[in-house]
């Protein structure tokens, strides 16, 4: 077993931006371990995506099969095992997504090997793999040594800077074998209507609302602010739990990690679990009635005030400025 194997990810038939972040994380680790770097993609039609996944791999393994989309854990695990068999790596990296959170730990248990999820730093000490990840919601960082023949790591998105352009050596196509019907069957998928076209994860500007909005009837303040500055809509967990908006909008530890240039948090107190999702945002603005709210310790700019007064003034001026 030698080598670092990096799994990319696809969304809607395109390469997920996190994939090239994984490649960068994997390349550094492969160099430190002095082992080769290989890549892998799982999906149903990978030709175009594979061309974009140029992370400098000695070999790129493509595991293709119609049954791999939409996602099911059983098929993903079988496909990943095929790639791991082909690459025989000592370390495998995956982007930390709602999918990998489900199937990678089951894979670890099947392979009886060490796994740490949601890592933000990876280091080699000799042949030891040492990783760091936020714990206690993000207020504390834990450092772990991962052991096992094939050490598995999921990596938080938005932590490593994506870089493309390093050519792939060889492409190895593996036809995925559809696993026998199991005890879990996908019936269908229900997609939530997205409030704006931009995916939260890739949005440059995000306006996020919290419990401080007071109720779903006030949610239009957030939508209107986002619309005025061309941003995506986010929310804190209580807002999603209470069903004011769908969970797809939730930012934070158990929601999406975002990386915008501008993040405006309205009526959000700034719990560590929320801040965990915005740590890679460039400029953070807090609008909160309570000047002692923790959100102000992460924000670059703050407005202490009632959002019902602040946002209309903001929207009006922003519209003028943007012409």
């Amino acid at each position, binding site marked *: 077993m030698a080598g670092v194997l990096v799994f990319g990810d696809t969304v809607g038939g395109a390469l997920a931006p996190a994939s090239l972040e994984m490649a960068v994380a994997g390349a550094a680790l492969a160099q430190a371990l002095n082992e080769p770097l290989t890549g892998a993609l799982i999906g149903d039609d990978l030709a175009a995506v594979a061309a974009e996944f140029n992370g400098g791999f000695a070999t790129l393994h493509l595991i293709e099969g119609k049954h791999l989309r939409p*996602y099911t854990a059983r098929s993903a695990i079988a496909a990943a095992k095929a790639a791991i068999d082909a690459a025989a790596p000592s370390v495998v990296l995956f982007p930390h997504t*709602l*999918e990998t*959170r*489900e199937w990678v*730990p*089951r894979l670890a*248990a099947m392979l009886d090997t*060490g*796994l*740490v*999820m*949601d890592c933000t730093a990876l280091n080699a000490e000799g042949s030891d793999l040492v990783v760091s990840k*936020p*714990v*206690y*919601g993000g207020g*504390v*960082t834990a*450092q*772990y*040594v991962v*052991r096992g023949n094939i050490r598995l790591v999921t990596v938080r998105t938005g932590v490593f800077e994506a870089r493309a352009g390093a050519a792939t050596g060889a492409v190895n196509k593996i036809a995925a074998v559809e696993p026998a019907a*199991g*005890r*879990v069957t*996908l*019936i*269908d*998928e229900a*997609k*939530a209507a997205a409030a704006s076209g931009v995916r939260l994860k890739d949005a440059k*500007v995000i306006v996020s609302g919290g419990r401080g909005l007071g109720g779903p009837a006030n949610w239009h303040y957030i939508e209107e602010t986002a619309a005025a*500055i061309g941003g995506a809509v986010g929310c804190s*967990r209580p807002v999603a*739990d209470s069903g004011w908006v769908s*969970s*797809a909008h939730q930012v934070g*530890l*158990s929601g999406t990690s975002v990386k915008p240039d*501008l993040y405006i948090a309205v009526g959000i107190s700034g719990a*560590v*679990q929320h801040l965990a999702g915005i740590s890679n945002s460039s*400029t953070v603005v*807090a609008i909160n009635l309570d000047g002692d709210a923790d959100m*102000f*310790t992460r924000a*670059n*700019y*703050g*407005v202490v*005030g*009632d959002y*019902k*007064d*602040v946002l*209309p003034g903001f929207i*009006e*001026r*922003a519209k003028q400025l943007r012409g």
Partner: protein
Amino acid sequence: MNIIVTVKQVADPNIPPAHIQLDPDGKRIISPFGVPPVINGYDANALEEAIRLKEKHGGKITAVCLGDDSSRESLKYAVAMGADTAILINDPDLVNGDSATVGRALAAAIKKIGGCDLVLCGRQASDTDGGQVLHWIAEALDLPTVVPVTKIEAVEGQQLTVHRLIEDGYQRIKVELPALLGVSSEINEARHPSVRGTMAAGRAMIAGWKAADIGLAAQTPKVELRELQIQVRTTKAELIPGSTGAAQGAALADKLHELGLI
């Protein structure tokens, strides 16, 4: 339906980072004085869902926890909420185990209990933010799993229809019992114990099992915690002045425009 709910006791996740302290070997956090540990939030959601299933379909709920003696408090809380029985695995060799060790110990305990129709776990524990233990349980017991579950839509004989969260909506999934589900907070709002429940919890006998009781052999850890470090946050927001809220809002827009952000 016989249901086992795994319940972990954790430091209160609402402790602000500035108040978190580490023990001398840097491997555990010490809760500030007067802030008792709590039952992991997602596990409370799992227990709530178990109680709702029992109310509809009958059966029995067993709460299982691996932890030190103080974890009895969380198991009492589970009984107060509505669990019928509670079991504590409090072997010092297991308490600081990695996910594989803890998961296999919980699986061994579930076997000793005599199995069940459904294991309900939280999607993750709020102290480790691990998200793994449930999968080690499932693999050891060869159970199908779905995570994160936001709704149990239907129960038909030995089949459940559940919703699994995806990035832009949810999947509807059929799963055959016995199965293990990792529950997310969207699924319900956990109840607070009633007075009657709290009285029952006061009388409840909580069994304490050691590794030998569940036939568990020593294991070499696959993941070793080296140290914890508290993240100090230093930024202090520059406050936007203004005589009224609307004026502050306009000044904020000016500022962000000046910075080229809007």
